[in-house]
């Protein structure tokens, strides 16, 4: 076993601490971005679906502005977003380097994507059910929390899984510009120093994360779909 590792992963086996450290950093970025961007994304997604056409708080002017804003944000490539946001990051976090600093562009990169996904997920909720709830005298907040978020749960879980997997990819990119994490490791070791085996290890770990999140979300979707 050891021989095998020595033979195929000569460099990676020298730096277990660094690999572990990077893994933790990636998890750190993924977790906090998912949490914060998740909340904002759901909030904005709900605003989109309720103010949009056929929404319960229809306000097409407001919707149009929000809609355009999201489209603009989404059309900026993430790597450019990273450099675009350095001054904002420095202002907010005090530095533009490191995992915490990376959270700013990550959140701003993920929110519009996730908000749009949530909007689409909630649009799948049968309009008839919304109408029935309105006919029962349910308030708009009641419809959001007791209808949209409950009836849309399987779809929300599905788009969340897609977003998380996307997010793991983005954390790697943030790593490339000094954000830390597995992306950083792959660049500094694998790319700059030709330690391809380290790159392979990072790929394996990231794939593992992807599989695990896929597995969990599939399980959760199955549990919540009736």
């Amino acid at each position, binding site marked *: 076993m050891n021989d095998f590792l020595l033979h195929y992963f000569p460099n990676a086996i020298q730096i277990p601490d660094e690999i572990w450290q990077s893994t933790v950093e990636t998890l750190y970025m993924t977790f906090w971005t998912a949490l914060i961007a998740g909340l904002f994304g759901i909030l904005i997604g709900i605003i989109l679906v309720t103010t949009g056409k056929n929404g319960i708080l229809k306000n097409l002017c407001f919707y149009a502005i929000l809609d355009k804003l999201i489209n603009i944000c989404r059309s900026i490539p993430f790597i450019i977003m990273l450099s675009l946001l350095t001054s904002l990051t420095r202002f907010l976090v005090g530095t533009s380097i490191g995992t915490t600093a990376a959270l700013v562009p990550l959140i701003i990169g993920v929110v519009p994507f996730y908000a749009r996904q949530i909007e689409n997920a909630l649009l799948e909720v049968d309009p008839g059910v919304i109408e029935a709830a*309105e006919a029962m005298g349910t308030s708009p907040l009641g419809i959001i929390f007791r209808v949209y978020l409950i009836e849309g749960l399987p779809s929300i879980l599905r788009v969340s899984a897609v977003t998380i997997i996307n997010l793991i990819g983005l954390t790697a990119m943030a790593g490339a510009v000094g954000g830390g994490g597995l992306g950083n490791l792959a660049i500094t070791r694998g790319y700059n120093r030709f330690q391809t085996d380290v790159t392979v290890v990072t790929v394996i770990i990231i794939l593992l994360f992807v599989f695990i999140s896929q597995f969990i979300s599939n399980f959760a979707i199955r549990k919540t779909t*009736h």
Partner: protein
Amino acid sequence: MIELNNVSVAFRQKKETIHAVKNVSLQISRGDIFGIVGYSGAGKSTLIRLINLLQRPSRGEVIIQGKNILTLNKKSLRAERKKMGMIFQHFNLMEQRTVYENIHFALKYSGIKKEQRAEKITSLLELVGLSDKKNAYPNQLSGGQKQRVAIARALANDPEILLCDEATSALDPKTTTQILKLLRELNQKLNLTIVLITHEMQVVKELCNRVAIMEAGEIIEQESIVSIFSQPKKNLTKDFIRTATHIDQALENIWQHPTLAHLTDNELLVELSYVGEQTSEPLLTALYSRYQVTTNILYGNIEILQQTPVGSLIAILSGETLQQEKALLFLKTQNVTVTLLKQHAPKNEGQKLTKGGTNNE
């Protein structure tokens, strides 16, 4: 109970404005089962949604139990809506909630204690005959069962009005009959006022005491069920009724029949319709004894509407021309509506007349 005064609804779209409801006035009394019939796109759904203001009118007044609900603020309007149940063609149950939870949804913020809510749900499920499905999810239920859950949910807050938007249109005939029976029981047990819209006259026939016919946004005819069946005035109304009583189907068959091709000079093909306790037999006997006109019945149908029989006959009357005319006049004095479907056509024997015939009122 429910009063619509000159309500109109216009949907403004980019190019055109759709007038879905045009200047409609309706009065529905407590305990009525009021049917609104019309083809798809007539504006029925828009009209029924006016009653709980899911759709606001562009013009007119909506008055529920003496209160103009257009003037209510959002909160009072929601309170008002709790007093009106509504059921739909596609049931609109929440897929992610059990039967129990679906009904509970309507009760959650009604200010009733938890144990009482549970009791209430149990009794509602009993009322609609679904006690054993309490913990099932909607997609484990049949269409009829889903509609029963929807009815239980609609009744959760003890409404006095139940609005039904094509409630049986997605159900098979047998289930439709069961749901209609349930609605009738609810009407009697709870003195529930029911407004029901449908494109099937059959449904109205079985359930309603009053009916309005809707076409292109307008109520073109509005009557008690008995008079609309016995004396429909508008062509659309007649269409609906003929479909419901299967008379069109019968005519279709009769037109195929060879005897028709050979109507002689002295024969008339007529449709007779009459209302009330009188039965057709003494009348037909009278036709013979008074005018020597014999009646050959090809098709007969009697509907019992609100305990009143409404009959239709398709028959060939044969006798002398003069006597036939007298016989027809006599029938008219007896309040029988006579529609001439076909008479002997001297030149062109096999000529086909328009199927509605000419109304000989």
